[in-house]
Structure formats: structure tokens, C-alpha cells
């Protein structure tokens, strides 16, 4: 196994995470529900106006699907809902995980907390942190699926959350390069005002790149170190915080299997279900096995080539392709580009 792939696997969570689907009720209303309710309140929407038609009552335990429905309903009232909510959502008020964020000594630590306890801090989109020698890469991947029209909103929301958190806890604006897996919007006012002007569209991944030196600069909180929340979390005080969305778990599994022939049966064994059941579950989340496999391989190939500077042949070998032309063909199918275009 190559050195670079080992680095990629280091970003995976240790142990076997419990997974949640779109209909697992585990998000307390007081966490993300209250955040959305605060936004609705600020825009003058009464609960019976926007919650009652969705069949949701304030105070109930929410499923990811219900949270997505609430977001979609708010989006019809305000187009900037993602950015505005994002600005307020981290460190947030999500129990121990939020306290751990607040007690983080620098941005790198905060991002590690964010990735480890994503079920609490970012239940709809799973962040993954990759480190190279001089930069940090925060990639956003699906947690348990989202309708295609909502995907950009989630990405915008989580990116603005990280940027606003860095400004709030770090005391100065964060400069990072953002790439988006979508075509360029007609105009960039919201993105520029909330996220900064270093934006790239039409990329294969939704990712934030920032220099490592910036992420290691101590935050004001570092002067009064506190490890209570982090230690409590590490000792399992909030087991649900370690949960991961089903697609995130599948992604983790496929990354750990890179280089070996991946099969639907192997992944089904990971979830302890039959292949047919896994197929059905993925269909309910709006995706299928091959799409997820292609995505993981494309991400890995891009990572190895553009960040580790590896050549096509080495990447093909790492990913388990026997010949280069086969890899080139597959790469083209995943990304619409040839490896040489990078």
C-alpha cells in the first residue's frame, strides 16, 4: 500500500461507527431544530405557518429527512437561508461537541473535533480532514443523502459555518480556497460576501483548502486550556456524536478497501445486511453502489494526483488498476477529464 493512500486512510474514524439513515430520529430539537426555528422566527414565520404543514411539531426528535424538509421549506421563503444559518451554526449549542469546539486551541483542533463528532455538529453533510505537509483540506461528502437541489445549500451552509466559526473563535477572517462540485452560479454575490472571493466552480469535490500555518495559529481560547468536553467525548459521554450517516460509512469502507477489488457483497457485510437490502437502502437515499464507488475512487485519484503529485501509473497501481489505459478510461467516466488535464 502506498504512503499517500495511508495518509488518506488516516482521515477515517477509528473503530466501527454506528450508522444512521435518512429516517433515524436522533437529532434533538434543541440542536439543529432550534437553529432553524430561530431563523424562521427572525423572518416572521409562525410555527403553524411553516412547521404544521410539514407535520412536524416543535420539540420532537428529528430525522435527517425531516431536517432537510424543514430546510427546503425555509428556502422557499428566503434564498439566503444556507449562508445565514451557517454563520450561526458553529460552534453552536449542540452539547459537549460544541463545547469541545469552543475549547479548541486552534483551527486544526477545531476541525478534528468537527470531523470526529459530525453527527452532532454537521449531521447532514460529513466533513473529512486531510493533511499534507503544508496545507489542510476539508472535504464535504454526503452523510445520508440529500435531494440534488438541496445539496448546494448544504455545502454553502457548512462552508460558511466553518468560516464564521474561525472568525468568531479565532478573531480574524479565515482566508481559504474553496472548490465547488457544481457549475458556476449566474452571479456570486452571496458566495463572495459570506465565503470570500477565492472560489472555484466546476470542481469534482466540495472542499476547503487552507494553509497549515494558518490552522496552527493559536486561538484566544488556547490561553485558557480546557479539556473537559474533549475528554468526556473521548470517554463516550455522547455515543450518538460518533454516529455516521450511511453514505459516510460506505465511503469510509470503500476508502479502506481502495486498491483491492471492491464488491457490493463486501460492503453489505460491513452493514450486516444482504446485498439486495443494501441496494434498496441506497436507492432510498437516492444513489446506488457504483456511483458511490466511482466517487470514492475519483476523490482518491484526484487527491493522489493533485495533492501528492503522483503520476498516472502510480495512481492506477494504488487504486488497483492493472493497466494505465483502463484507469484513464475510468477516470474519464468519473470526472469527464483525462488525468493529463490536471
Amino acid at each position, binding site marked *: 500500500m502506498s504512503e499517500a493512500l495511508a495518509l488518506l486512510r488516516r482521515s477515517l474514524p477509528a473503530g466501527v461507527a454506528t450508522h444512521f439513515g*435518512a429516517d433515524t430520529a436522533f437529532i434533538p430539537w434543541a440542536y439543529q431544530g432550534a437553529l432553524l426555528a*430561530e*431563523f424562521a*422566527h*427572525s*423572518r416572521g414565520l409562525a410555527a403553524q405557518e411553516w412547521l404544521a*404543514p*410539514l407535520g412536524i411539531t416543535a420539540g420532537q426528535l428529528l430525522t435527517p*429527512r425531516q431536517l*432537510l*424538509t424543514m430546510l*427546503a*421549506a425555509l428556502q*422557499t*421563503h*428566503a434564498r*439566503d437561508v444556507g*449562508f*445565514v444559518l451557517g*454563520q*450561526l451554526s458553529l460552534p453552536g449549542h449542540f452539547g459537549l461537541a460544541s463545547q469541545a469546539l469552543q475549547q479548541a486551541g486552534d483551527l486544526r483542533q477545531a476541525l478534528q473535533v468537527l470531523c470526529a463528532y459530525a453527527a452532532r455538529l454537521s449531521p447532514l453533510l460529513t466533513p473529512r480532514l486531510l493533511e499534507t505537509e503544508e496545507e489542510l483540506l476539508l472535504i464535504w461528502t454526503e452523510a445520508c*443523502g*440529500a*435531494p440534488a437541489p*438541496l445539496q448546494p445549500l448544504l455545502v454553502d451552509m457548512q462552508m460558511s459555518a466553518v468560516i*464564521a466559526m474561525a*472568525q*468568531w473563535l479565532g478573531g480574524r*477572517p479565515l482566508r481559504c480556497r474553496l472548490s465547488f462540485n457544481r457549475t458556476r452560479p*449566474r*452571479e*456570486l*454575490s*452571496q458566495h*463572495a*460576501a*459570506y465565503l*470570500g*472571493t477565492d472560489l472555484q466552480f466546476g470542481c469534482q469535490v466540495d472542499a476547503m483548502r487552507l494553509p497549515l500555518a494558518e490552522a496552527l495559529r493559536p486561538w484566544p481560547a488556547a490561553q485558557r486550556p480546557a479539556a473537559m468536553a474533549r475528554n468526556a467525548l473521548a470517554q463516550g459521554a455522547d455515543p450518538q456524536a460518533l454516529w455516521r450517516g450511511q453514505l459516510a460509512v460506505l465511503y469510509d469502507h470503500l476508502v479502506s478497501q481502495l486498491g483491492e477489488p471492491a464488491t457490493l457483497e463486501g460492503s453489505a457485510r460491513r452493514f450486516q445486511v444482504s446485498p439486495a437490502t443494501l441496494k434498496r437502502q441506497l436507492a*432510498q*437515499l*437516492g444513489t446506488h453502489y457504483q456511483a458511490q464507488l466511482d466517487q470514492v475512487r475519483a476523490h482518491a485519484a484526484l487527491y493522489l494526483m493533485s495533492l501528492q503529485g503522483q503520476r498516472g501509473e502510480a495512481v492506477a497501481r494504488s487504486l488497483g488498476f492493472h493497466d494505465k489505459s483502463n484507469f484513464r478510461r475510468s477516470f474519464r467516466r468519473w470526472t469527464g477529464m483525462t488525468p493529463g488535464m490536471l
Partner: protein
Amino acid sequence: MKLALPRPPLVLAPVAGSRHFGHALLLLMCGITWLFAHWAVAKPLALWRWIDILSESLVVAMLGLWLVQLRTSRPGGRVTTWLCLGLAGMLLGGWADLMDEFWKLPRDYALLLGMESSLHLAGMVGLTWGLHLWRQEQLALNALRGGRERGYREHDQIDRLTQLGDGAYLLDQLRWQQRRGEPATVVMLGWADLPALSRQQGLAETDRLLQATGPVLLLQLRPGDLLCRYAADRFVALLPRADRALPDDLLAALQAHVHPCADGQTRARLQARMVQAPLDPVLDAESQLLRLVEQLR
């Protein structure tokens, strides 16, 4: 993944003060059908002209749809009443026209024979009067949008919170200004630390401050100037042929603004910031705006 979002309910505006306009219209249509059924002679199936039936029922359906659209989109009032009465007259005329395809009226019923055309005509007169009133209403409403739009309206580009044009509207206007080749100044204004206010006082407080910012700036603008909410707390004023002092006056107006918070005790004084640049007639308008955003960070 699929999400099921409920449709918002249709609320119909009253016509002439009555909520039963639709029922009355349906009753009148039944009445017309009864008149035909009672006084006229049914045409045999062989005489039915299908192309006429199809086109006339399409006309009726279209007029019905317009009535629903009109009543769901407008508040009640004189304009709505006249527009609806006009359309209803045309719809009844169209309905009589359609019934005419199934029944043949004997020659001696002049009153019934004239029904179609007279209903149609009365409807058109009512609609014309409604349109005239609508024009006057629109002129009154346009005056409210002074400074918020310039000779062009696109409802998709109105920011709902501040009722100003949004980033897309601004971009269109900048490009239009560039094409006209008239010198203009672009001023971007913003609040420092607005996210901090929303963390400390709640989102509703930020929204109230943003809503107040628009009128504060609009009071300083001359006729022909334009104010847009670019995004977040950034407002952009497009000032054709501005003198040098105007941007500073805008900044001073913002600086002087004290925001009374809803708790009744806190009076927030936020730092306002401003950058300005003359509009370059050649350079892409969007990159000029992005440069201003970068300078204001």
C-alpha cells in the same frame, strides 16, 4: 432522496367585497346552459364541429385560469373587482359561445342571440376600465420603489428582507450603466461585526438592523441613484455622476445610526465601513464588485 413539501393554500381575493364571486359565476354559467337547454333546439351529433368546440372550451378554460391567477395574486379592491368583472364577462360570453355549438337558437329569440356578443363586449369594457385603474395604482406604487429600482423590474431579483434589488439586479444595472457609457461611482457599504450581533442578540435583531439600513441610505440618495443589497451586510449604491462628497455622506449616515435592540435596553452602535471605486466602462462588472468585496473584508 425525495422530499414531500406541501403546497401553499390558494387564497382568493374577494371581488366587490364578496367571497362568493366564483360561486356566482358558476351559477350564471349554469343559468346560460339552462337558457339554451330550455329555449334552443339540440344539434344532432353529426353537426357538432369538434374544432370549434375544442377552441372555444380552451378559451373558457384560459379565462377561468386567468381569473384564479388574478384573485390569488392581488389584494381585494376596486382594481381587482373591475379586472375580475371584465374577465368574468368575457368568460360568460365564451361559455355562451360554447353552448351555441351544442344547441341551435331559433331565429326569433333576438335577446338570446345577442347574449354572446353583448357579454363579451361588456367584459372587454370592464377589463379596459380595470386596466386603466391598474395603471394609476401602479404609478402610485412605483413611487414607493424609487431608489430601489431604475427603469427595470425583475421580481426574482428583489431581496425579500430589505425590499431592495439583490446582487443579480445590481449586476444587470451595472452592465447597463457600462453600456450607456455614463460615468458613475460604485459605493459598497457594510457593517463590521454583524455576525457578532446575531450571536449576541439573535438573528431577528440582525434582520431588523438590515431592514433599517436600507431606508437610512435611501434618504441620502438623489433621484436616479440606485441602492441594492449585494449580500449579507453589504449594500451597494450606484451613483451616476456623483460628486466626491456623496459616498462620505452615505458612510456618515450609517455611522450615525444607533440600533435600538428589541430588548429595550441595548442600543447597538456598530462600525460602518465603506469602499468606493469609479465604474470602469470596460472591465467585467462582476470582477469589479468582487474587488470591492475583497477590499471591505
